């Protein structure tokens, strides 16, 4: 008798690869041939996961239409057997797959729309955290600001697009005609995060994106101020930095702050940049 282990291996191969060895183990029913009956499992596997992808990438589905999306879904399912307990995570590699796999790779907006939809889904049910408030920051004495380290909200995800995928996504979301896909002259920085219960995204200007990236790495505020001053000039750098910070706080993009230990921030402690708490 075939062992349970071997039987399950054959059953799975029968679904994933079309191997018919398992048909020797299963019986015809009173009304149906075994090939038809086992075919229910083969069909269900692809249909169920294609439905998962269509739900998770709803606007990409709309953008591509049924036939092209089905082609992408089938290729992805064939290449990525699920290793997850929850189907919620099955499609997590779709953006990378579309970016690396012909013929989808020659349309970068496909991968980027997928990346945006995934980031929004991840932000939607990502970890909870109390947003940093202006009041929280106001408690930091002005002399400590240079060694302040900002903590992004745990749902925050940075994306960089080379196509107008964000505009296409927005048009599809509003159920209007999306613009034709195009390559952007400069890469576009985006930030995705959850505000309240709403997953959101917005573009970041180059300087703001730079400051966010460095802040997310744990670079202290004094150095961030210097970097902003270097990026686009010292004139107004203080105001620009404070404005970015205020925008992030107002939009719940930060979840906390901490002070770098004083001994570790000697280099930045004496710098000439001082930024007042944003509520003053």
């Amino acid at each position, binding site marked *: *008798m*075939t*062992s*349970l*282990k071997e*039987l*399950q*291996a054959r*059953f*799975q191969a029968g*679904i*994933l690869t079309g191997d018919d060895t398992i048909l*020797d*183990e*299963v*019986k015809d*029913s*009173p*009304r*149906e041939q*075994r090939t*038809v*009956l*086992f075919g*229910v*499992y083969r069909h*269900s*596997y692809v249909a*169920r*996961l294609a439905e*998962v992808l269509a739900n998770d990438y709803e606007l990409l589905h709309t953008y591509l239409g049924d036939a092209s999306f089905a082609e992408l879904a089938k290729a992805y399912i064939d290449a990525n*057997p*699920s*290793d*997850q*307990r*929850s*189907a*919620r995570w*099955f499609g997590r590699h779709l953006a990378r797959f579309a970016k690396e796999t012909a013929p989808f790779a020659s349309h970068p907006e496909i991968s980027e729309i997928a990346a945006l939809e995934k980031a929004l889904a991840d932000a*939607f*049910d*990502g*970890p*909870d955290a109390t947003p940093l408030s202006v009041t929280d920051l106001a408690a930091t004495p002005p002399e400590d600001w240079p060694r302040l380290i900002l903590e992004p909200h*745990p*749902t925050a995800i940075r994306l960089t697009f080379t196509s107008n995928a964000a505009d296409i996504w927005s048009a599809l979301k509003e159920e209007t005609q999306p613009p034709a896909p195009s390559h952007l002259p400069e890469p576009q920085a985006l930030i995705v995060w*959850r505000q309240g*219960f709403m997953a959101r995204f917005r573009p970041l200007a180059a300087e703001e994106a730079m400051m966010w990236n460095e802040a997310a790495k744990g670079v202290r505020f004094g150095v961030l101020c210097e970097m902003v001053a270097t990026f686009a000039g010292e004139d107004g750098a203080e105001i620009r930095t404070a404005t970015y910070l205020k925008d992030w706080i107002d939009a719940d993009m930060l979840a906390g702050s901490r002070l770098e230990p004083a001994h570790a921030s000697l280099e930045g402690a004496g710098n000439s940049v001082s930024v007042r708490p944003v509520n003053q």
Partner: protein
Amino acid sequence: MTDHKPPYLGFGLGLRPQHYEEILSGNPAVDWFEVISENYMIPGGQPLRIFDQIRERYPVVMHGVSLSIASTAPLDTEYLTALKGLADRIEPKWISDHLCWTGVHGVNLHDLLPVPYTQEALDHVVDRVRQVQDFLGRRLTLENVSSYVTFGQSEMTEWEFVTEVANRADCWLLFDVNNVYVNAFNHGFSTDEFLHGVPQDRIVQFHVAGHSEEEGHIVDTHDHPVCDEVWDFYREAVTHFGPVSTMIERDDNIPPLAEVVAELDIARKIARELQDGARLSAAE
């Protein structure tokens, strides 16, 4: 396991996101909700908050789809830890999953795959149920699944297998009325044989659902209203087992809440008629 048989909860529904708003704003006449465990094994956000609000108003049971109790792959301790964590958070009346396997070799096929009814499979499943119950610190409830194939090597009937698992592993059973109906049609046995072949004292829940009929087989799609034949079998099941917590399972083509509540009312009506009939008989 020393925990007592779970309480009778009445008539419940599967909690689906499409109904969140209607449930919170309308307080529908539903006695309890069953949640898909995996849907709430997420880091945070609105689904968990909404769930907490619903949990404050209704008893809840947890129903998993990927425990894979009959798989020959090792038990997934990460999954079990998450399951236990969720149970600690929401305090379900019971935790159920399916008497099936979902994959081997690190793959999850996201389907409820059939088991051969052999002594080898029985020993394997019983051992795994015991391990899971020890880990969770409570009895597991296992559901009979719909299937489309049977195995040449099977040595017993499905109901004999289910009964042996329940008795030897000391677990509860979720009797899926629709799945018995589907399997009886697909494999050519009598629903009565199954009904009378499983132990009454192990049954803690009924599932009732719709399905799709193909030419020579039935597919358990949960995307249709419950058909008359399944309602008839539900009536037989209530007659045989007595009052059992009953739930309408709808997973696709999900209609407005009122439609599913109306289906649940059919179950209530059947159960009430049978109870009234029993009272009359007792009084005579």
